[in-house]
């Protein structure tokens, strides 16, 4: 039997291969005789629907795209379950596993991708599956029917959909994700965090920063062990860590490949008779893992093969997560950068986070969580490169609002456009009409509006709206207000607001604060991140996990950075007292690590200069061995307690000032504070320890201890204010603890005690610390409770290997011969 038509052979009976054939048939059904080889023993189905299939929302019949009748009606021969194993380009034939040889005039590669399997020990155990085809889903369903625990490795789109399905099928699911936030390629930190919260609320366990070391079990999977030693039991492990274009046939046939099979704008490979389409191709350096680009490829391919060539120009993609009840959408580039502006809207009460990124007058990216209604509209603006200048201010409110004429150059337009019965303050149910009426009735300031309507008096998140209404209603008469500064440009909340709300709303993570308090940037800035980290640490001692990357370099490295990038190391010297053993250890360290200077500091201790970041852990180990701990000379924390020799030696000394200083330091070391904190204890009013310019100064007198606070010897000299006099050492210690806690709980981040005391007034401090005995005792107790978690030497942990990455180079480049390097070694 001969057929005069040219023969088109398709390798791959998946989404792209069949769609390409459909596109060709639609243009010219008579042009080719078509044969499709498929490795899978079944007809063409919708692969993306495997997720709903797993979740039990669909059956296989529902997801079939082309049934047997379609192949028959179009004269297509389907060779299912017989993979192609070789291509002979010279002879223009392919060979299938069964031995069948087929000649082609045109060959189409549509082999898709292979799931990537991390080669950890145990990856080949029975019970480890991937998530790519019907057989995988079958394996998962069989495992799920026995119940038990499942671990999904990979918190991307695929992994989360697998986890959701298995969870609905009754398994106890743990998702392990290497990166700190879920779906980090599609979502920003804020949205990733919301997603994690929601999945956890539903009952899944999500471990981020989780690095798999091995899958263990006797013959079949019993669990997964992480690099940090944790073990998670599991009878099923799904690997969903990514995909690799399936290029094996193309590589063996000598076609040009990169990450995928190289194709031109007409989807032709380096061999003019061979085309390729779908996930297996690389076009202009891009490989795709979603279906939308492959539909576009298929159109261009058919155009070039049977009609007028149109040329494929690459695709812009968008992502949606198919987990019922969770709406997530992202598209384009939201990595920010030069010239980009973020417009962020957060509505904590409804769990919504929206972010659009605008560059010049074009929208270049968007991330939506909770409300994805406008996803398609944003995506359209993005793909068409529409000029959004005229609707910019209304963009974030969505299509209905922006095209409803609400947009104008006035940033208050959004409030202005709200109807009178629109709600301004959700907490107290205050409408726009009510607020405007109050303003017209004479409430000309934020406080006045708060007083007579209660709007913005609770959580404060509508403060911006109320200010907008003041501005609109009063026009030029309203100059703006808010004497207290906001934390930074990322928020309209003041430090005090943020601290109060962290407690009221029980906020326990930085992204949560940013979401609940409507931060206008996705991940904050170098001003607010350290502040929030401190506020959370102070509010939830023992619970909050410190965010090292939100700390200034010195606190992250536990040493002071110097102008040449080396560090200085200051061990604690309790009350300024040292001994031969400590001095010997310091001398040894200085010699061994070639410190360029050892200096006596103004804080009565020794500073070792010029240590390289790589050597810090070893230096600390040596100092630890001699009994010394971190002096926190780098931290917003207790620095030194300076003392004089006192009654032990001095002919004027009235009390044991050295001993008291040491005891105060032992009580207070390790505590983080809004700023650095210094204490001094002098043995008599001659004040050799300079107590009158410290955050707390203690001056011993015959009848007891005079306590004074709020001094500063730095940029702006300020003598301390007298607080009170106490009779015993214990009382002195108790008052110090209470005062420190008051400062920790109420000062703004980066306030030393001096400006803070000036702002709140010494009377207020006296009232809280001296007059209110019960309050003082409570403050002291909170301080000591917090200290029970803080007094843990950070140097010892580093010396033992914690965060070693911070101290070591990632790699090193050693050009073999400079300047023209012939070969390269990369260590």
């Amino acid at each position, binding site marked *: 039997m001969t057929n005069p038509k040219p023969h088109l052979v398709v390798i791959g009976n998946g989404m792209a291969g069949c769609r390409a054939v459909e596109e060709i048939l639609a243009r010219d059904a008579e042009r080719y005789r078509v044969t499709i080889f498929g490795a899978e023993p079944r007809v063409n189905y919708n692969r993306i629907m495997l997720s709903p299939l797993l979740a039990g929302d669909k059956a296989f019949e529902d997801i079939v795209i082309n049934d047997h009748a379609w192949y028959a009606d179009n004269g297509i021969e389907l060779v299912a379950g017989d993979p192609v194993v070789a291509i002979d380009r010279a002879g223009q034939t392919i060979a299938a596993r069964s031995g069948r040889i087929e000649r082609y005039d045109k060959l189409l590669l549509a082999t898709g991708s292979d799931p990537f399997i991390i080669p950890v020990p145990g990856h080949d155990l029975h019970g480890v599956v991937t998530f790519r085809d019907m057989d995988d889903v079958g394996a998962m369903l069989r495992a799920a029917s026995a119940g038990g625990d499942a671990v999904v490795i990979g918190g991307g789109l695929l992994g989360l959909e697998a986890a959701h399905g298995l969870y609905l099928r009754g398994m106890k699911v743990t998702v392990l994700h290497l990166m700190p936030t879920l779906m*980090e390629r599609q979502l920003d930190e804020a949205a990733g965090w919301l997603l994690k919260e929601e999945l956890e609320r539903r009952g899944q366990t999500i471990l981020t920063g989780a690095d798999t070391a091995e899958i263990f079990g006797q013959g079949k999977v019993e669990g997964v062990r992480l690099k940090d030693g944790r073990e998670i039991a599991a009878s099923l492990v799904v690997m969903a860590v990514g995909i690799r274009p399936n290029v094996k046939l193309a590589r063996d046939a000598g076609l040009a490949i990169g990450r995928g099979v190289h194709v031109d704008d007409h989807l032709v490979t380096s061999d003019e008779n061979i085309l390729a389409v779908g996930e297996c191709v690389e076009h202009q350096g891009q490989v795709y893992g979603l279906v939308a680009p492959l539909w576009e490829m298929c159109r261009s391919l058919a155009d070039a093969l049977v009609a007028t060539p149109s040329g494929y120009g690459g695709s812009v993609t968008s992502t949606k997560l198919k987990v019922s009840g969770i709406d997530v959408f992202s598209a384009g580039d*939201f990595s920010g*950068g030069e010239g980009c502006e973020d417009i962020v809207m957060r509505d904590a009460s409804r769990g919504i986070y929206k972010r659009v990124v605008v560059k010049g007058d074009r929208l270049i990216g968007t991330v939506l969580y909770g409300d994805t209604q406008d996803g398609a509209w944003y995506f359209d603006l993005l793909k068409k490169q529409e000029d959004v200048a005229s609707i910019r201010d209304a963009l974030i409110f969505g299509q209905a609002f922006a095209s409803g004429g609400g947009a104008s150059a006035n940033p208050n337009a959004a409030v202005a456009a709200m109807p009178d019965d629109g709600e301004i303050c959700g907490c107290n149910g205050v409408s726009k009409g009510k607020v405007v009426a109050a303003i017209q009735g004479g409430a000309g300031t934020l406080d006045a509006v708060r007083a007579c309507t209660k709007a913005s008096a609770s959580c404060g998140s509508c403060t911006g709206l109320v200010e907008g209404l003041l501005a609109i209603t009063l026009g030029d008469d309203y100059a703006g207000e808010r004497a207290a500064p906001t934390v930074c440009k990322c928020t309209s909340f003041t430090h005090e607001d943020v601290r109060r709300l962290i407690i009221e709303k029980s906020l326990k993570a930085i992204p949560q604060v940013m979401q609940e308090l409507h931060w206008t940037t996705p*991940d904050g800035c170098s001003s607010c991140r350290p502040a929030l980290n401190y506020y959370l640490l102070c509010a939830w001692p023992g619970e909050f996990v410190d965010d090292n*990357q*939100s700390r200034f*370099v010195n606190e992250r490295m536990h040493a002071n950075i110097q102008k040449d990038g080396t560090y200085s190391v200051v061990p604690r010297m309790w009350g300024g007292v040292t001994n031969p053993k400590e001095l010997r250890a310091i001398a040894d360290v200085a010699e061994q690590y070639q410190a360029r200077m050892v200096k006596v500091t103004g804080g009565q201790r020794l500073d070792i200069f010029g240590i390289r970041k790589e050597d810090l852990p070893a230096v600390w180990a040596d100092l630890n061995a001699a009994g010394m701990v971190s002096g926190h000379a780098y931290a917003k924390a207790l620095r030194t307690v300076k003392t004089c020799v006192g009654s032990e030696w001095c002919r004027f000394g009235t009390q044991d000032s050295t001993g008291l200083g040491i005891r105060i330091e032992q009580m207070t070391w390790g505590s983080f504070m809004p700023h650095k904190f210094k204490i001094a204890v002098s043995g008599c009013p001659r004040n050799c320890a300079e107590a009158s310019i410290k955050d707390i100064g203690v001056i011993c007198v015959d009848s007891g201890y005079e306590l004074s606070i709020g001094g500063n010897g730095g940029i702006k000299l300020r003598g301390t204010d007298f607080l009170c006099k106490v009779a015993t050492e214990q009382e002195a210690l108790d008052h110090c603890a209470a005062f420190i806690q008051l400062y920790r709980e109420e000062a703004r981040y980066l306030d030393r005690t001096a400006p803070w005391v000036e702002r709140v007034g010494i009377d207020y401090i006296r009232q809280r610390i001296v007059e209110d005995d019960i309050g003082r005792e409570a403050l002291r107790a909170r301080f000591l409770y917090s200290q029970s978690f803080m007094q843990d030497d950070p140097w010892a942990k580093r010396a033992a290997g914690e965060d070693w990455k911070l101290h070591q180079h990632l790699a090193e*480049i050693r050009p073999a011969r400079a*300047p023209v390097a012939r070969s390269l070694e*990369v260590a």
Partner: protein
Amino acid sequence: MEPEWLDIGPVDQLPALGARTLPVRGGREIAIFHTANGQVYALANQCPHKAGPLSQGIVHDTTVTCPLHNWRISLVTGEALGEDKGCVPVIPVKIDGGRILIGRAAALAGVQ
């Protein structure tokens, strides 16, 4: 032919929202940054102001704030942002199969 890209190790060796360094013998040290979105960038590890080690700064969005005097430097262009003027060399980076590749020519520029 010289390879165009140098493999300098797996992405998971970078701390999230942080950076690590890469000394180049006879050349200038390189800082490799990791953003919240998991993107990776590389700059010469020297602030255009007074040569502060940018690798030790706070990373936020696609910016690093220099640890010495708080200049903000774009990870994308190497330019100082805001009022400050100056620029630090950018080294091209790409990720392939979870590994970090950096542009060879730019990495070795200045090697003597």
